[in-house]
């Protein structure tokens, strides 16, 4: 028997798109997301380039489309453990991790007020804290609290359950496994920021004022750890100078072999964040090539003309710290003047690139990967397709295009099985 439903793994912008687009054609879709909320990485982005518009705007529309479409079923806190069978007839095992908060939760927030312990907030890359029971972020969909079992005081403490009037707290909740049958699979688990600590010469993790581009997004966001204010992590002070270091890990055979495609535009965008908050700050971008392709060139020109940033052609080679004030010294060879420059900054932003999620967690089926872990273009297992940044580094618009295309591939797959 051929199954007509489609499994989409990953609830970020790519997976959401594949799911919604396929469902709106009329197919039954299962969407599996490992986080406790849908939206993935874009929920952590402050603004999209080049329009400088908030990702939550588009996410709200996508969530509306999910809410109003009975053909989509989604699982959060879920991981695909196994895929067996064949195109048109896959058996998929999904592990559902416990939220410790049941469907009764009304997101009233009383529990978090009562909770006595804190945890590092991964949504903000550890730059602030939440309670052990927390709402991942205020736009979280589904809007439910969750307990971090690693942080929860556990056993003796029942403070959250005591204040919850809706019996929503279930400390004994356990992981469950469900098995579903689907006709085709789209793998859209996205990307992770490359671990900047691996780039030894930049001192990330050692120097507090060296941060990554994804961290700056959170800092610039009104719902971020600093409520939108860009400040130095070491002392919370305003900044007078900032450097953006391009290709931090990308285009580098010691790290990510590919160009991550988005970092140039992302840094140009972040230059506008800084300039808006600090009209007089010194902003310097260290680069090899500025890759604002296509119409994005307009944005590059605009930033050059309006943001008063200095562009240094030369990869930042090393970052040193002045331990007396935690200022950073960026050393690079300025190739237009042919000299080595050593400039001091209050803060440095590493434009760390995209590592496909499949580099760490591969598809539980036979697939091929390139040297960086991206899915190779030709699928090995018929009926399983990649979408978005597991295929290649993509910006949001391109990821959505790719994910829309993947929806068609998945549909073709089940149609083909029906025919034949």
């Amino acid at each position, binding site marked *: 028997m051929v199954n007509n439903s489609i499994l989409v793994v990953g609830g970020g912008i790519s997976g959401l798109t594949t799911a919604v687009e396929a469902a709106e054609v009329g197919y039954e879709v299962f969407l599996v997301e490992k986080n406790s909320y849908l939206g993935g990485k874009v929920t952590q982005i402050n603004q999209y380039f080049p329009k400088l518009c908030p990702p939550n705007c588009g996410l709200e529309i996508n969530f509306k489309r999910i809410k109003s479409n009975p053909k989509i079923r989604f699982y959060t806190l879920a991981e695909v453990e196994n895929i067996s069978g064949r195109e048109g007839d896959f058996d998929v095992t999904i592990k559902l991790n416990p939220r410790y908060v049941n469907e009764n939760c009304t997101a009233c927030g009383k529990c978090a007020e009562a909770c006595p312990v804190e945890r590092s907030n991964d949504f903000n890359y550890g730059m602030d804290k939440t309670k052990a029971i927390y709402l991942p972020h205020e736009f979280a969909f589904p809007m439910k609290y969750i307990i971090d079992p690693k942080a929860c005081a556990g056993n003796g403490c029942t403070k959250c359950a005591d204040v919850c009037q809706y019996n929503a707290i279930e400390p004994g909740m356990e992981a469950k496994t469900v098995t579903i049958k689907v006709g085709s699979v789209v793998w859209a688990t996205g990307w992770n920021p490359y671990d900047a600590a691996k780039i030894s010469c930049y001192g990330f993790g050692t120097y507090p004022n060296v941060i990554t581009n994804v961290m700056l997004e959170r800092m610039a966001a009104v719902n971020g750890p600093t409520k939108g204010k860009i400040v130095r992590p070491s002392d919370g002070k305003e900044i007078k100078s900032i450097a953006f270091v391009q290709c931090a890990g990308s285009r580098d055979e010691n790290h990510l072999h590919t160009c991550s495609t988005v970092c140039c535009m992302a840094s140009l965008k972040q230059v506008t964040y800084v300039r808006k908050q600090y009209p007089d700050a010194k902003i310097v971008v260290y680069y090899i090539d500025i890759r604002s392709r296509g119409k994005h060139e307009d944005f590059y020109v605009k930033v050059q003309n309006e943001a008063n940033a200095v562009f240094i052609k030369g990869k930042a*080679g090393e970052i040193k710290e002045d331990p007396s004030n935690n200022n950073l010294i960026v050393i690079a060879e300025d190739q237009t003047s042919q000299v080595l420059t050593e400039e001091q900054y209050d803060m440095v932003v590493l434009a760390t690139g995209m590592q496909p999620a499949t580099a760490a967690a591969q598809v539980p089926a036979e697939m091929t990967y390139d040297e960086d872990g991206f899915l190779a273009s030709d699928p090995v297992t018929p009926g399983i397709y990649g979408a978005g940044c597991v295929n290649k580094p993509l910006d949001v618009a391109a990821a959505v295009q790719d994910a829309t295309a993947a929806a068609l591939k998945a549909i073709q797959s089940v149609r083909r099985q029906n025919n034949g």
Partner: protein
Amino acid sequence: MVDNKISSAPVKYDNSFAKEIYALENGHYAQICMQCGMCAVSCATHDIMDYSPRRLFNLVRVGKKEEVMRSNTMWMCTACCMCKVRCPRGIPLVDVMHDLKAMAIKQGYVDYPHAAFHQAFWQEAFSRGRVFEGGIMARFILKRGLGEIKKLLALGMKDMGMGMLKHGRVPLVPPRKIKGLKELQQIIQRAQALQEKEAK
């Protein structure tokens, strides 16, 4: 030292020198340089180099043979490998520098004392199978003349030697040649022959 001044007449791109370099054992790596400048920053001796490795590769690309061959860049390399570790294109810069040194020696660009030191070391290793500091020094001075000694003495080398002696760190007799020296030399000669064949 090399004249860094920019001339007014346009520099003509000439590929013949680049071809010569790219044909060296590790020379071909120079052509995949994407001109990021990471090596310049990483280099332990960049501040006394005429050109950073990146600039040197750029000069190779343009075809400025004299500038490259007379530059001190490769001689200043301490083989600390920082550039090699960091080069985003995976260029083994240390090995390219070795090739440039070997080429310089072969073509008579031996003004820098380092050339003599390298040769002295090589001769010592080849003729004994192991090296002995005293032997290298003797060969070095033989090549460079007494001027080098004066220079070293001015820096206080004599006291240094005495200190070493005093702490029992200078073997007065050179170590014996290795037993299999003849075989080693045969191996080396065969390697040289193979290497030359490979280059063609």
